[in-house]
C-alpha cells in the first residue's frame, strides 16, 4: 500500500563540529546526502550499526535538528517553514527506553493528556475523555490513569508512550528501537499493537531497529545506512529476498535465527568499525567489504537501480538497466 509521499528528505546533510585542540574544529559528517521518502501507510525500516547516523536522521525528520543542507518536506511543505507546534500534530516519536522517556513525577493520565493540554485541545472534560479513549486504544485499563510510571511494567510503559504519541492524531510516528528494551513476549505484543494502529488510523512509521528480524516483520520499505549514507533502499521484501549491497548481505547474515547447532555465521566483515571523523576514500565501505574491487578505493559509487531497489555499490552497476 504505497500512496503519495507524506515525508520526503532531499539531499539532506548534517555535520557536527567536534572540538580538536584549543581553537580548531573538525567536522563529523553524521548524515551525508540522504534522500528518502515515506509514503502514506508505509513502514520505513532504517537499519545500520551504531554510529551510522540513524539517530541524527530521526532528529532531522522530527524537526529537532536543522540540517546543514537539504530539504525536508512534510505533506509537500518544507518543515523549515512550519512551527514546532504544527509539526508535533503531524509527526510524533516513540523512544527505545520506556524507563527514561516518561516523567516519573507525573501520573499516566497526565502524561498522556499533556500534549492535548499544550495544544489546547477541547476543554478539560473533553481531554479526560480523550485520555481514557487513548488508554483503551493501546490496551491499558483506565484504572491505570492515576498510576505512576514506576508502578508499570516495561511493556505497559511503552504502551503509555504510544498513547502519548497518538494523542494529537499524528500521521507519522518515528519509532527509535521501540522494542529493544522489552522481553520477547512483550515485544510481540507491542509489534502487534503498532500494526493494529497503522491499520486503524492509517499511520505511517519510520522504524529504527538493530533487530533485523523485527524490521523484516514490520517494514514495507527498508533503508540501510552506513557511515551517514543510505547504501541501499527499496521494498522490504525485495531487499530481504535479494540484498543488493554487500553491507546489507552482511547485516542479514548476522541475524541469529533459531537453528540448533548451526553455529554462528562467519559474516566476513573485515576490519574495525569505521571512524565517522575519518571517512575512507572512494566507497566508504570498501575497507571492510568482502567483495571489494580496485575501483572501490578511489571512486565513490553512484546509486544504481536494480529491480526497483536503489543500491550505492559499484557491483550493482553491471545489473542497472540504464
Amino acid at each position: 500500500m504505497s500512496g503519495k509521499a507524506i515525508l520526503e528528505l532531499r539531499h539532506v546533510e548534517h555535520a557536527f563540529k567536534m572540538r580538536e585542540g584549543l581553537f580548531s574544529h573538525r567536522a563529523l559528517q553524521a548524515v551525508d546526502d540522504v534522500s528518502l521518502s515515506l509514503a502514506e501507510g508505509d513502514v520505513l525500516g532504517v537499519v545500520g550499526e551504531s554510529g551510522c547516523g540513524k539517530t541524527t536522521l530521526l532528529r532531522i525528520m522530527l524537526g529537532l535538528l536543522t540540517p546543514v543542507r537539504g530539504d525536508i518536506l512534510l505533506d509537500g511543505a518544507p518543515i523549515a517553514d512550519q512551527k514546532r507546534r504544527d509539526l508535533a500534530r503531524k509527526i510524533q516519536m516513540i523512544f527505545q527506553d520506556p524507563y527514561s522517556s516518561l516523567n516519573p513525577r507525573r501520573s499516566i493520565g497526565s502524561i498522556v493528556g499533556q500534549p492535548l493540554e499544550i495544544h489546547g485541545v477541547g476543554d478539560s472534560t473533553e481531554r479526560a475523555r480523550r485520555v481514557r479513549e487513548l488508554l483503551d486504544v493501546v490496551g491499558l485499563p483506565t484504572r491505570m490513569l492515576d498510576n505512576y510510571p514506576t508502578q508499570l511494567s516495561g511493556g505497559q510503559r511503552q504502551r503509555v508512550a504510544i498513547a502519548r504519541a497518538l494523542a494529537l492524531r499524528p500521521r507519522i510516528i518515528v519509532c527509535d528501537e521501540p522494542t529493544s528494551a522489552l522481553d520477547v513476549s512483550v515485544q510481540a505484543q507491542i509489534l502487534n499493537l503498532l500494526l493494529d494502529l497503522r491499520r486503524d488510523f492509517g499511520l505511517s512509521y519510520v522504524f529504527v531497529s538493530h533487530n533485523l528480524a523485527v524490521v523484516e516483520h514490520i517494514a514495507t520499505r527498508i533503508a540501510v545506512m552506513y557511515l551517514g549514507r543510505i547504501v541501499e533502499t527499496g521494498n522490504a521484501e525485495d531487499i530481504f529476498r535479494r540484498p543488493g549491497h554487500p553491507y546489507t548481505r552482511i547485516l542479514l547474515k548476522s541475524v541469529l535465527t533459531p537453528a540448533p547447532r548451526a553455529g554462528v555465521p562467519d559474516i566476513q566483515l573485515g576490519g574495525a568499525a569505521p571512524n565517522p571523523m575519518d571517512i575512507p576514500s572512494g566507497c566508504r565501505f570498501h575497507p571492510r567489504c568482502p567483495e571489494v574491487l580496485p575501483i572501490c578505493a578511489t571512486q565513490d559509487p553512484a546509486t544504481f537501480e536494480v529491480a526497483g531497489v536503489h543500491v550505492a555499490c559499484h557491483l550493482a552497476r553491471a545489473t542497472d538497466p540504464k
Partner: protein
Amino acid sequence: MAEAARLLEVKDLSVDIATADGVLHAVRNVGFSLNRSETLCIVGESGCGKSLTALALMGLQPHRARRSASILRFDDVDLLTQSPKTMRRLRGDRISMIFQEPMTSLNPAFTIGDQIIDVLRQHRDVSTAQARERALQLFDRVGISAPQSRLRQYPHELSGGLRQRMLIAMALMCGPDLLLADEPTTALDVTIQAELLRLLAELQSELGMAMIFITHDLGLVSRIADRVVVMYAGEVVESAPVENLFEDPLHPYTQGLLACLPVPGSTPRMGRLPSIPGVVPSLIGAHTGCSFRDRCAFAVDACATGEISIGSADERHEYRCLRTPMENRTGRRRLQSART
C-alpha cells in the same frame, strides 16, 4: 555421561532476598550440571533469576540475599563451604565472568594495561613484564588491533565492541575452566555480536573451557548452546539438549517463548505474532503450584496446589509441568494450527 567430565554440579540452589514486603524468592531450587568444554545457556525473560543464579554460583549475590543449596560443586571444590578468601582466589582464575555492559565492569580511572596485568598478578606469581606479554598475546588472539598502544588507553577511549573484547581477554588471562557470560553481546551491534560469538566459540574449543551463557535471545541460544535451561519466575521450567528444546519444547512457557519470536522467512510478514498473555507473578511470600499457571492455556485446578512434579521425555529432557509430553505436544500443535 562419564563422571570424570563433570565440571559443575548445582542442586536446589535458592536465593532469598528480604524486602520490606516479605521474603522475595528470587531463585528457587535451581539445579543443573555442566561438563567440561560444554556450553550451557540459561534463558528467560527479565526478572526470572538467571543473572542472580550465576552470581550466586560465584558467591556474589547481594549482601542482603541469602543463598542456600544442597549441592554446589565446582570440579573438586565444594563452593558452599569455601571462605570468602578462597572464593576470591577462584574467581578470575578458574572461574571467570563477563557482563553485559563492558563500561561498568572496567575501572575508568586505570588504564586497560593496569587492569589486565593486575588480573594475572593477583593469581599467579609472575612479573609485570610477563603479565604484559600474556596480555599482548591474548589481545592478538581476541582480535584487538595495535595491542601495545591499547594497554596505555583508558576504557572510555574504546568502542563497545573493543571493550567487550578487552573483557574477554581479561577473563581468559588465567585460562579458566569455566566462563560465566551474562548477556555479553546484548548491548552490541548484530555484526559485532556475530564476530564475538564466533571468537568465544573458537576460544572455547581451543582452551577446552566450559561456558554458562545467560541471555534472553533464543536465536543466539540455538546457535551456541549444547544444553539449555529455561527459567521462569525463579525456577527452572525446562532443561534439555539444544535440539530437543527447539524441536520438541515440552513446557507451555518454552513453547510460548518460541512462538512469539518473529523469524524471517517463516513468520508471516505483518501478521499477528502470538504472545504470552498476563504478567510474571510476584515472587514475594510462600508459593504453591505452578508459577506459570495464570498465563498457561492448559492450566487446570491441580496446577494451583502442591509441588509441581518434574516430567521427562527422556533422562536428558526434563520439564516442570503436570501434563505428559504427549499432552503438551498435542497442545502446542493445536495452538499453532489455531493461529494459521
